[in-house]
Every structure is written in structure tokens, then in C-alpha cells.
């Protein structure tokens, strides 16, 4: 959010003057309510994001794979791995998958432009979108943990701090990447397919469905992307509690996600546009890092 503020070029003093304290916080709450309303009234979005993680977990667990153990992780039951890995999936799908598609659709439908022309401050809009993703993420995490604990006797972490840190960094990372990727997708027809294909390939390579041996070629390849780090850092506290000799803290994973978060913020700042891409005749197509903010050549519909 702070990044987008800087992009609009307002001075801190002007910002401060524009902030209306409790009224603006109420406005965020109100906006979150309508974000939630929009989310739950769209059955496809709600099903794909929330129900999918739960159903998928239950399907995997009810198959033969559900009763197996993981030999290279101290023969821990596979469910101990699946519960947190699907929680990580739920967060990624809410903060990245859902957010990216919804931002592209909003931009191309002209909804972002309309919001820009209303008095709703940009930070309120972004805060509401962020809180909305957070609520949907949290809901999935809670449902999955409850299923794990009461359905499959999975021990929840003794110490929640490492888990919470990993989840918070993960939420920030994938939200930033969601915004960044939305700026790279030119139209709403492309949004669904592009996001889903990239996302599901990475999920597969990163060990959502089965842990990948660390040190393997696949693990080294997947380590470049944030998805694997999200999964391993969420899983680690559960493994530690189940007696596997690993640290519940995954500093390496957290660092990689933080780097991706910064990259996401940089791309978002440079590429963010309020106007639909297709209807902006002056927008120069193509260049990945189209220069922003100049008074001369670029349309600042973007700012």
C-alpha cells in the first residue's frame, strides 16, 4: 500500500491532511463489507477459492495416498503434510489467483477507473482488497486446521509464532505478486487461463501434492519461485510438532518470499494502470517496464 501511495506522487503532508482518522477507518470497514459481499455473491469465485482447497484435501486423504507415510520425513503421516500445504494453497489462491483475476477484470471493466474518479482514497481501496484476501485466507486456514485436528488428529504447532510469521510474509508476498501479475495481463479473457496455468504448474512442481526431497533437481528449480517456500514454511511448524527433526522457523523461505514481495511491489508501481488497457489509444503496447510518471510521453491515466 505504501508503495502505491508513493506512486501517486503525493507529499506526506498532503496525505496526512487527506486522512480523516476514524471516518476513513470506518470507510475501510464498509468497503471490506462490499468486497466480501461481491465475493460471496459470485458463486464461481467462492467455490473455486474456498471450497476447492477443502474438497481437494479430503479427496486426497480419502484415496489410498491418505494413509501413507513419508519415508524421508521421519515416516510422518502424509496428512500432517497435507493440512498445512493446503492451507498454504488456500492463501496463495486467495491472495494471488483470485486477486490477480479480479484486478484484471476490474481494470478492464472500467471499475478501477471509476473508483479512481470517486472520492474513495486509493489506500482505502487497496486496504479493503487486502483485508478481503486476508479474511478469505484465514477462513481456509481455520477450516483446514480444524479438519486436520478433529478429523485426522493432526497436532497443531506447539508454538504458533513461526507459523504466523510465515503466513503473514506469505500473504504479503502473494498479494504483491497478485497485483504485479495483474499489471502484466493485457485483458480479462487471458487472466483466468494465464494465472491458473502458471499457478497450478508451480503448485505441482513445488510439492503441494507430495513433498519434494530437498536437494533434488526439482527442488532446486522450484526454489526459485515463491510457491515452494510458502508451502515449506507453512509445513515446517507442523512437522516439528509431529516429531520430525526440523526447525519450525524457515528463515530461508521467509527471505525468498520477502524478495519476491519487493519484486512484486516494484513491478506494481511501474506498471499499475487505472484505465482499461484496451481502450487507451495512447498507451504504448509492449514494453515490459513502460516508463511511468513522466509528464511528456506517457499517459498518466496510470497514476
Amino acid at each position, binding site marked *: 500500500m505504501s508503495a502505491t501511495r508513493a506512486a501517486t506522487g503525493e507529499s506526506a503532508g498532503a496525505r496526512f491532511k487527506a486522512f480523516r482518522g476514524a471516518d476513513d477507518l470506518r470507510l475501510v470497514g464498509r468497503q471490506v463489507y462490499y468486497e466480501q459481499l*461481491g465475493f460471496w455473491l459470485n458463486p464461481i469465485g467462492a467455490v473455486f477459492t474456498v471450497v476447492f482447497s477443502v474438497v481437494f484435501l479430503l479427496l486426497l486423504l480419502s484415496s489410498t495416498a491418505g494413509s501413507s507415510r513419508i519415508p524421508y520425513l521421519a515416516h510422518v503421516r502424509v496428512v500432517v503434510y497435507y493440512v498445512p500445504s493446503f492451507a498454504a494453497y488456500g492463501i496463495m489462491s486467495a491472495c494471488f489467483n483470485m486477486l490477480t483475476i479480479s484486478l484484471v477484470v476490474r481494470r478492464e471493466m472500467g471499475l478501477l477507473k471509476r473508483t479512481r474518479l470517486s472520492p474513495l482514497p486509493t489506500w482505502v481501496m487497496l486496504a479493503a482488497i487486502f483485508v478481503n484476501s486476508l479474511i478469505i485466507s484465514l477462513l481456509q486456514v481455520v477450516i483446514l486446521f480444524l479438519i486436520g485436528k478433529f478429523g485426522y488428529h493432526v497436532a497443531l504447532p506447539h508454538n504458533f509464532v513461526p507459523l504466523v510469521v510465515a503466513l503473514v510474509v506469505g500473504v504479503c508476498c502473494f498479494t504483491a505478486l497478485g497485483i504485479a501479475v495483474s499489471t502484466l495481463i493485457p485483458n480479462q479473457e487471458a487472466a483466468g487461463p494465464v494465472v491458473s496455468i502458471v499457478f497450478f504448474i508451480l503448485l505441482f512442481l513445488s510439492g503441494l501434492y507430495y513433498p519434494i526431497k530437498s536437494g533434488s533437481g526439482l527442488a532446486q528449480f522450484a526454489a526459485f519461485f515463491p510457491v515452494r517456500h510458502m508451502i515449506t514454511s507453512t509445513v515446517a511448524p507442523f512437522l516439528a510438532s509431529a516429531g520430525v527433526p526440523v526447525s519450525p522457523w524457515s528463515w530461508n523461505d521467509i527471505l525468498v518470499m520477502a524478495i519476491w514481495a519487493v519484486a512484486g511491489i516494484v513491478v506494481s508501481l511501474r506498471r499499475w494502470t487505472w484505465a482499461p488497457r484496451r481502450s487507451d489509444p495512447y498507451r504504448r503496447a509492449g514494453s515490459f517496464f513502460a516508463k511511468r510518471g513522466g509528464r511528456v510521453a506517457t499517459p498518466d491515466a496510470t497514476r
Partner: protein
Amino acid sequence: MAAVSVEHLSKRYGEIDAVKDVTFVVEQGEVFALLGPNGAGKTTTIEILEGFRSRDRGRVDVLGYDPADRSTSRQLRERLGVVLQELAVEPFLSVRQALTRNAGYYPRPRPVDEVLELVGLDTKANARVKALSGGQQRRLDLGLGIIGNPELLVLDEPTTGFDPTARRGAWDLVRAMTGGGTTVILTTHYMDDAEALADRVAVISAGRIIAQGPPGSLGGRDVGEATIWFRLPPGTGVGDLPVPATVSGNGALEIRTDHEIEVLARLTSWALRDKVDLIGLTVERSTLEDVYLRLTGAEAQAAAVTEGLER
């Protein structure tokens, strides 16, 4: 007091002058229309007024604010209503939910029920937006534009895609708004929009304003050449007339003149004296469309000539 004043506004995109040296003033409570072909610079101009685009040169004052000043943009937008060229409505909310949500952005919004009635969606208040017809969604769009009870309403081609009934509805809405003292700026390429609504019109072509004035007198429309049409009964010919006339394609007679009163006097006194019927007698001034086509056509020709010379 002027609601909007624009002086020597210019905006370039690379090599293209999207807006060049545009100057106009819109008085409070006035309806001002920017008329021009596609790509003339209408939308760029109003997007600069809305603070959506920055300008390169010139001075702009909207309701006492500089739209480029980010520190006051929220205050300005609280007093501004905008209806975009393209439909922009969330599909999953109900009509009432969408209006109620946006009402919360403004300090003194219009009551949601009042807006529902103004845009004729009172019976559709609980319908999902995606279940509305295209025209109904467009009316909701108008409703979202006026929910904040704006002092200035900016309409970018508000009637594009409307059927004649819906267009009349939109006109009534704009009139209702101006009745309450709201200033309106609209862009359009429909002459009848401008003619029906606008107190003043500016014709914009290739980024420049080429004519400005009340629609009735634009481009010297009220003082220029008039055309007199009529038919003669069988047995009377052009040669019998006291004034020269030409036979037009459909067999009617046509007289083009700058002195229509004098010509009509001679013509009608001749007709009375000789008891000749002037069938379907009509006097026509050039329509706003004629003026517009003449103005923008001349501009386009001039541009083509200059381009030719430059090559």
C-alpha cells in the same frame, strides 16, 4: 462564478497533439457540450478536468481546485460526478447495494431511493446488476454518477448506445440535474444531444476548439444562408417565379439566399396576387449537423493539405 475555466490547455502524446491550446469557460449551472469526431481530444480534455490525466501546459480550474493537485483531489472528487464512456458496474451486487456503497464515499450523497427513481430503476432496486439489460446498466451508471449530489457532472458520451426513448430519459435526467443547479459538461457526437441539452457548445477537432457558442448560433448558423423549399402546382413553371430558383433532385424548387425575408416577401406576394399555391413551403437554416460537418470537414481538409505539404 465560473464552475470550470480552462486556458491554453495542451497535452501531447509523443508526436501527437491530443489537445492544443484549448480555452473555454463553463458557468455555474450551465450545460456545456464538447462536440467532435472520435479522437478529436474530447475525452482527453475532460479526463484532465477530472484529474485523471495530467496536462502539459495551460491553466485549469475546476470548482476552485486545480485537478492536477493531488492534495485536494479528494475534496474535488467529492463534488464531482463522472459517467464514463464505457459501462463500469460490478456484476454481482444488486442495484441498491452498488448505489448504497458509492453513496458512502461522499459527504452529502443523494438518498438512494431518490436516485433509483431519477434513473428509473426503482422497480429493479433488488436485481443483480448482471441481470439488468444493457440500457438499464447504463442508467445505473448514470445513477452512480449523480449519487454524490455533484456540483459538476461530467458525462462522456452519455447516450451512446441508447435507443430514442432511453435518450429522452437521459436528457430528462440531465435537465433535472441542472434544475438543481448542477453544472454539466458532456461530450457527444450526436447533434441532437447538444441541441437538446447544451447552453453552449464547443466544436473540437484534432485537439483544437474550432467554434464555440450557443447551439442555435454556432458557426453563424442564425445569420447565414437559408434555404427555401416549395413545390409549384401543375401548369406553373420556374420561369413564372419573380425570383430565381433551381429545381432540386426530388422535383421541389430550392432558393438559397442570405436575404430570406426579402425573397419570401416577393415570393408570397406574387403567389397571393396570382393565386398560386406554394406547396410545402419551408424555410431551413443550416442544421447544427451541417455546421458541424462544415467545420470539422474544413478542419480535416486543412489538416490533409498541411500533411501533404509536409511530405
